[in-house]
């Protein structure tokens, strides 16, 4: 049951998009220990804490979770049992959520060291082929004029997307969990081909929805603020993947794109477009 005094604040998403090796993970994670080389995730924490430390008469609860989507399967990167696959569910009141996803909850002060532990977590093994989502939820409780506590909740999704280089042409929209090697040669991918025939027509067979876009749907468009960081490498081709199109459709005109060009080991240049 939800507390009637809980209101939703703003949601935000930062997406790192680009081909493998162009610096997405470096952008999102960076080197946690080195203040010069911190990525978006540790910087976000720092930003949250700074803001919290400057507040008065408010109580904060910060909650963080870290998951990976690989071949349309969801894994909890903070869980002890890494082999367990998690399910995506929907609640009519609160929207999309992951069942049994663990999160660490900390009252403000101690989060720093915990967060660093996350940074040194074994990065998902398949980083170029999976999406990693680090979510920070901040709850702020404040006594209102009526003397009651009012709670506002905001969520920040920090998404390190899979490498955007196009999947092999013969494979179809996605990889099936069953035969990981030579997908395009295996008849088990026939389903992908058939789905592609039905895609975009009026009759909708729903089980092909992408887990990533479902999970992020309340953080894309509408009231949410979305920022996309596109990383490029010297050999980048502009090849569309289905994910790009999906994201572009969801974001529409609402996303600001920050371009990060990795020109070499030492130089970064930023262009806002």
């Amino acid at each position, binding site marked *: 049951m939800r507390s009637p005094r809980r209101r*939703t604040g703003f949601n935000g998403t930062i997406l790192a998009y680009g081909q493998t090796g162009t610096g997405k993970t470096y952008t999102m994670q960076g080197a946690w220990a080195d203040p010069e080389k911190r990525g978006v995730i540790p910087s976000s924490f720092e930003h949250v804490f700074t803001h919290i430390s400057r507040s008065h008469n408010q109580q904060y609860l910060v909650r963080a979770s870290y998951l990976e989507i690989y071949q349309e399967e969801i894994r909890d990167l903070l869980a002890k049992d890494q082999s367990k*696959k998690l399910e995506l*569910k*929907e*609640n*009519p*009141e*609160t*929207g*999309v959520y992951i069942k049994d996803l663990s999160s660490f909850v900390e009252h403000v002060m101690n989060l720093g060291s915990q967060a660093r532990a996350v940074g040194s977590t074994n990065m998902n093994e398949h980083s170029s082929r999976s999406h990693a989502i680090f979510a920070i939820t901040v709850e702020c409780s404040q006594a209102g004029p009526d003397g009651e506590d009012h709670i506002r909740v905001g969520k920040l999704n920090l998404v390190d997307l899979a490498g955007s280089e196009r999947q*092999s*042409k*013969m494979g*179809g929209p996605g990889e099936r969990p069953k035969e990981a090697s030579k997908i*395009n*040669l295996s*008849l*088990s991918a*026939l*389903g992908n*081909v*058939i*789905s*592609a*025939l*039905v895609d975009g*027509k*009026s*009759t*909708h*067979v*729903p*089980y092909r929805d992408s887990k990533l876009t479902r999970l992020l*749907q*309340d953080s894309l468009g*509408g*009231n949410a603020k979305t920022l996309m960081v596109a990383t490029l490498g010297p050999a980048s081709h502009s090849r569309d993947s289905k994910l790009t199109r999906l994201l572009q459709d969801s974001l529409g005109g609402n996303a600001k794109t920050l371009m990060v060009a990795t020109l070499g080991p030492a130089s970064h240049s930023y262009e806002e477009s």
Partner: protein
Amino acid sequence: MNTALMLPPGTTENNLGILWSERGEIKTAQTYLESAEALYNQYMKENGNPPLDPNEHFMAEEETLADQERSKRFEKAYTHTLYYLAQVYQHLEMIEKAAQYCHTTLKRQLEYSGYYPVEWALNAATLSQYYLTKQCFMESRHCLAAANVIFSQAGQVPSAEDNETEQDQQDLRQRKAEIARCWIKYCLTLLQSARKSLEDNIGELDPDRQSELKAQRKKEEDEKEKGRKKAVLFGTSDLCDSILATEEKVSCICPLDFQEAREVFLVGQNYVHEAKEFFQFDGYVTDHIEIVQDHSALFKVLAFFEEDYERRCKMHKRRIDMLEPMYVDLNPQFYLLISRQLQFELADTYYEMMDLKVAIGNRLEELDSHTIKKINSLAQLAVKYYELFLDSLRNPDKIFPEKLEDDVLRPAMVAKFHIARLYGKLITSDGKKQLENMQSSLEYYTFLVDYCEKHPEAVQAIETELELSKEMVGLLPTRMERLKAKLSPFS
């Protein structure tokens, strides 16, 4: 052709096909694969025996394969050829050919290669949806019936490991529910296609067309059908019987009257219940709602076949009863799109019901107060939901957008138009109230006209409504003046 010297047609061409496709040269790939296909057909025609498997050239005499194994591998290579061709045609956007090759691949999977029953069933069910887009109901039904039969094989296969997990059971239930959803779409599409062929230019059942089509049906030969059917038939003879039995439970020809429509409706409704068992509201909000929307659509299209207005009204009431509770529980922040769809559908349904009550009322000599109350209440509920829909389009600062996005343009305009009309339908004996209603009506008609002036590109989306709105904008002020004049001696 000398058997010993010939490599199985499939292998080389298949590999070349894959190679060229990975280089992005789809047309070249197509050439190789089509030549593999032609070679297979030619070979089978000229020489029944399977050729040597390429590996056999490197095997010792005693290790070479039995004829049966050779045949199996040979056929499997050909199945792959067809499968790769299906992908090639899909990339070349030759959709019909792609579907045909997918179908044949599925067929061959049943006959030659191994297959996972659940996966096969899902693929067949998905393919049925493709056939629906082409209005090929016979093929669609065949795929779905086959899906049912093959899926039931999954439950029967005893699992080697006893630890069939909770997850596996869960997966099975989900797959079954997904197949049920494909059936729902089949029933719905069949009924909607029937409606299209029967309706006149105001959306009512045209009895002349009905008799025409019924007469045509008796004449039409089954020969053409039989030919098509043979081309797509799945499986061996024992499978055939089971599939046939399933097919006989639902028609594949367009229903032409209420009785026939109701039978299709009932099949669809059964599958709704089946699907909802798995896709429950709490847990699968979006899926559940889509299923209920389909259920509502089934009622809507059945109502078309129902002659009696009162019974029609009851069908629409069923729609309200299933949609409204869901809508109330939904948080629009997370389900904006669905929320809007439900608002609009609820409004439209109440609107439809109101129109029916008015029509019923017109047949009576005099409108009794009960009917008047009913009409007004339905009208007001329709207005409420159209307003909610329009409100959902406002930006966070509660301002109505200057320019409407393409996907909401027509619904928003229709909402405004219907509200205008609804205010015109409200029945009241209070002159002042009447004047207020006319004023509201006028405001909404004016909005439409003004918007189309400011945004001429919007006109084509709502031509009919715009025409009527312009008329009303012209007529209403005069009517209002007359009414004011009538009332003023008594003020």
